[in-house]
């Protein structure tokens, strides 16, 4: 087990190294002037780009440049973000909590709803319930996230006027911005900070703004989970050990809850990595459409404005999150399936 984790951590370093080379290689197609932006940390510096080009050798061979860049990254200097108008490392803490908040609410819902629906439609295969969830899943799978989000906005914001885009209502946002001493941003997530600062109205308002984004995120991600859980359940229910349990005198509920479900979770864990990737992609679309200033919004905005340092840093960060979550998934795998020995 320890050997396995150590190996995975080494692997993490390797992957991050690979990602950095990949991304650096891709973006080295830009002119030295553009690339200089990756080293700028203040607006003042931006004025003497030629100096930076010289200092970092942006006209030198690519491996020299890469070395210099990695050196900077290691020191925490990720460059200047045009979109955020501040250094990338600082802007990161501004945007990350918003995305985290969205996924903190969406992920548990995805897991609970997906596993429950999948189990039920697998157990009661070919029932009305099964057919309707299957149809819902395939339609949900076919709905582009951004389009679905737009439709929700059209109905719930435009027509019903229940939920609106953004993170907070403009009055509250203005108040928060103007009173930094009265509202401390402990976590950066308004729904939690509101409670911590004794302002439940802010929490409620933030939650209100979260309803549609979370709904979109859940519907788009849950389809995959449900499908895998369903087919896992169908497969497990036809295994011999189910008959053994039945021959022991087990009732139907014990059979599927106690015996089949845990086995059916094993294939679910193999697609957990895909679920993480789906959530990341979903966050981009959700944030763009609902105008929530999170990582996804930042990335999309940076892409359209060719804000290179952000793209590089976000790719590295996403790679890090992805590899770490895969490590956690593998450990979970070993926990659910005793046959797996991590060696």
């Amino acid at each position, binding site marked *: 087990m320890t050997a396995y984790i150590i190996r995975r951590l080494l692997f993490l370093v390797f992957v991050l190294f690979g990602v950095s080379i990949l991304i650096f290689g891709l973006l080295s197609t830009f002119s030295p002037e553009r690339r200089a932006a990756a080293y700028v940390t203040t607006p003042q510096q931006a004025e003497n780009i030629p100096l930076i080009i010289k200092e970092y050798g942006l006209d030198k061979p690519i491996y020299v440049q890469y070395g210099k860049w990695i050196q900077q990254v290691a020191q925490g200097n990720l460059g200047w973000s045009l979109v955020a108008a501040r250094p990338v490392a600082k802007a990161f803490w501004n945007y990350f909590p918003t995305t985290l908040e969205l996924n903190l609410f969406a992920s548990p819902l995805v897991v609970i709803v997906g596993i429950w629906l999948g189990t039920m439609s697998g157990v009661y*295969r070919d029932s009305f319930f099964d057919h309707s969830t299957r149809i819902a899943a395939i339609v949900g799978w076919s709905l582009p996230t951004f389009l679905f989000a737009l439709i929700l906005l059209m109905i719930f914001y435009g027509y019903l006027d229940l939920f609106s885009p953004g993170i907070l209502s403009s009055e509250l946002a203005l108040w928060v911005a103007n009173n930094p001493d009265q509202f401390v941003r402990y976590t950066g997530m308004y729904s939690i900070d509101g409670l911590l600062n004794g302002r439940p109205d802010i929490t409620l308002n933030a939650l209100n703004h979260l309803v549609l984004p979370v709904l979109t995120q859940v519907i788009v991600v849950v389809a995959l989970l449900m499908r895998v859980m369903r087919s896992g359940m169908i497969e497990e229910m*036809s*295994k*011999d*050990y*189910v*008959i*053994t*349990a*039945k*021959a*022991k*005198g*087990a*009732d*139907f509920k014990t059979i599927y809850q*106690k*015996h089949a479900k*845990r*086995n059916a979770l*094993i294939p679910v864990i193999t697609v957990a990595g895909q679920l993480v990737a789906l959530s990341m992609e979903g966050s981009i679309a959700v944030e763009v459409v609902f105008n929530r200033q999170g990582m996804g919004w930042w990335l999309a905005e940076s892409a359209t404005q060719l804000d290179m340092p952000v793209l590089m840093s976000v790719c590295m960060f996403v790679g890090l999150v992805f590899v770490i979550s895969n490590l956690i998934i593998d450990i979970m795998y070993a926990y*659910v*399936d*005793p*046959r797996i020995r991590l060696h």
Partner: protein
Amino acid sequence: MAVLLTAQDLTTNFYTYEGVVRALDKFTLSIDHGCTFGLVGESGCGKSVTVRSMLRVIQSPGVIEGGRVLFSEQAGTDPIDLLELSEEEMEGIRGDSISMIFQEPNAALNPVLTIGYQVAESFLFHRTAQMSTRICEKIDGGVSFGLLTPLYRAMLSIAAKSPKSRFLKACSRIPLLRRWDTPVKDEAMRRAVDIIGKLGIANPEEIVTRYPHNLSGGMKQRIVIAIALACHPTLLIADEATSNLDVTVQAQILQLLNDLKKESISSILLITHDLGVVAETCEKVGVMYAGTLCETGKVEEVFSRPLHPYTQALLTSVPKFHQEGELQSIEGSVPNLVYPPSGCRFHPRCPKAMEQCSIEKPELKELRKGHFVACHYAEAQVGGLV
């Protein structure tokens, strides 16, 4: 001898995409109290379907279409029809009065649950009331299970009367109250350790904490047997229990079954394709072909003086210790049961087939004493009933 279990005109079909597989066609069989009965036949002849139909554990797309399965647990009592019972009553019979061992010990054990839990489950399903009474007595005798002991005592006494009560199920969802059955589970686990030890497995305390993949094939098969024997069944059904095991392990298991037979179980229904196993362990035998029973009777009688052409051919097609000359084989192959042959299902391959055989399905008739055969030819040869 009194009859323990009778299957009458049992018919089971499988509704597949390719068509309706008529796996069992008016299958008839009866097993006596205290008898070891061997059911032999080639793969796909419906041996497993038979016993699974009897216990009603057929999986979709299989459907039991008709017939009766009469079961009288005590000799001389009125039999009950297992096919008429409600699912809940059936759950009470499975694993308690009738239990089953499966072919593939790898597949028959749940890979993600501990051995101990899987054995203990049998007790939890059938002995919760008994164990609860025992624990209530213990509590009254001064044994304590922590602060909530009086509350648990009350719940356990409910469990002692009706172990499947809705009230208890509801309680099992409430955080503190759900722990009422911990002593019962512990007791079940103790009994699991007991029975595993009795089956000749060294240090059972350690084995119960393991998972199936840690054990060898022979050990797994013993665990499967332990599960089946947990509640002292009246009838033990062993479905190809030794077929996938090696010769030396098979010898161990057969000996174990033999010993158990003497001690605790009343009857065994042994299903196998290995004629040798039947010859060595069974008293009576039934020979199956394509979903029907062709011949049944005492093993010595059937094996030394077979009347059905299929049994005769089968016996000459297996290699023996004293093999003389070439092995004889049966021409052709087992029919596709979506389109079963008309009349006697063996007639297309039968060397003795007569005109009548393709038209009329032969009835099972007692042609010699205790020796039943379903064959027009044999009937004509032997000349009517005894």
